[in-house]
């Protein structure tokens, strides 16, 4: 696999950094090179939290990058904040429940994809697994890690919580699967191409 660059962005507390860390660790456990860096300092003061993750089969250079292969914006503010990381080859993903104006969306993108992640989390699962749906979506879009590796990484990160409450395990795995399907479906249907 060649270099894949992903930017995840959302509000503090949405779990953006947690899923970035789990994804990077899952890739590392599959003997890939991975590099994850949070932007830090501002999110605790009310800014948008961004995670930069890179996957490769060779050594990764600079920790940040110019344009991402996939950008996922998890809040309305995050859409405009991350537009700069979207280039002609970028899949730009956001929640189609957001009220965003045309000018907030990136000017350049390979595809802009809206997925019903928040609605699905709230209605079918639980708001707390919203970020895991997004993690599933990233896997569906990029194949940076296998579904099983992602499950293993979730287990190793949250296993101690799953032990206390086995329903949580099921909920998280279900969210991961729904997110993956959601992204695969969106890819098949197409979206706004080359806007």
């Amino acid at each position: 696999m060649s270099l894949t660059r992903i930017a995840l962005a959302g509000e503090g507390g949405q779990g953006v950094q947690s899923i970035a860390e789990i994804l990077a660790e899952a890739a590392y456990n599959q003997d890939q090179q991975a590099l994850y860096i949070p932007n830090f300092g501002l999110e605790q003061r009310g800014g948008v939290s961004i995670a930069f993750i890179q996957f490769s089969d060779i050594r990764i250079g600079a920790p940040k990058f110019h344009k991402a292969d996939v950008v996922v914006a998890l809040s309305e503010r995050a859409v405009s904040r991350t537009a700069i990381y979207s280039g002609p080859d970028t899949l730009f993903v956001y929640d189609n429940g957001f009220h965003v104006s045309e000018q907030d969306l990136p000017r350049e993108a390979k595809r802009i994809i809206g997925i019903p992640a928040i609605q699905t989390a709230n209605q079918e699962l639980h708001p707390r697994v919203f970020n895991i749906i997004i993690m599933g979506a990233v896997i569906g879009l990029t194949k940076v890690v296998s579904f099983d590796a992602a499950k293993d990484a979730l287990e190793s990160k949250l296993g101690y919580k799953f032990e206390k409450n086995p329903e949580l395990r099921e909920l998280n795995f279900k969210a991961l699967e729904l997110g993956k399907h959601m992204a695969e479906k969106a890819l098949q249907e197409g979206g706004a191409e080359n806007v």
Partner: protein
Amino acid sequence: MPNIIGASKKSFVTGNETAAWACLVAGADMMFGYPITPQNEIMHYWTRLAPKYGRGFLQTEDELSAGFTVCGSVQSGKKAFTATAGPGNVLMQEPFGMAEAMRLPLLAIIQQRGGPSSGTVVYSQQEVTLTTFGGNGEGMRIVYSTASHQDIYDYIIKGFNMAWKHRFPVFILGDGYQAKMREPLEMYNPEDRGIEMVKPYPLIGVEGKISAGREPQHLNNIYSLEEELYEVVMKVAAEYEALEDSIVEYDEKNCDDADIIILSHGVVSRAADDAVKILRAQGIKAGYFRPITLRPYPHKQLRNAIAKSGAKKLLIAESAYGQLERLTKQEIFGETIKIESLFRPGVGIIDYDIINKVKSVL
């Protein structure tokens, strides 16, 4: 030394966690510190690890105190270290100066943040001048600029040995990106790689009597006579210069036929490495030169790279407004190669930035 790591093992960790583990396997006895972002987790990890291995930790009231307690601790024969950043690095220059004056084997990990003043808590390469030549002395220090977690691990182990072998203060110069990012690291016990750790030794209360078989230690940071100070500084400078060749480290790629040499240090050198590969693939003869030690500086090696390549231009890329450039210019004074610069103080530099700059100046 206890077998801490077991068989060499791969892990996926932050740079700060890397630093704490490296100090542990290097046999550090004690850390003194005061919290400041982005190095806090070095303290956090150390305080979790230290009690399990009989090592110590003290949080002092500020960085001045942290620096001086390290100065005291090493004199008693303890392998002690500290870690800081930004304004904390400014405060520690006074104790670091004492370490230069008294030839104390101190090790400090610096994770650069944005400046001046409190700047940002994130990242920069703006503590180069401060770390190489800070204090009211002559820069008699050893400064390793790391580019990866493996560097942080390897150079902390090496740094302790250089400090205790040569008795010059040693600095591991990282940055906020390296501190906070996660990437693969191979951890090992130094002994398993054939690295013998220099045993710490007391500088005070040593055995024997002066005039009866042992020389005085001369642990002094103040002199009443100008001539006395002059003599000491000249002696230390001569010893430092004599060691330069054995301490200097650098990395060089594709300089043999380069039209332009890209000079960078620390985490920026990773982007420079990628940029050179991409430029070469496009038929542009770019070379890569990275000083690993910023003090002493690999000036002979850089002059040699310039001479053998016949390069017309040297592009200096750094996340500061000319700190590496000033250091480099004084070290290669007299060279006529044209120097171009890519200064991005307080923000990262990626291959894209370097490639664009190279194309705009060639």
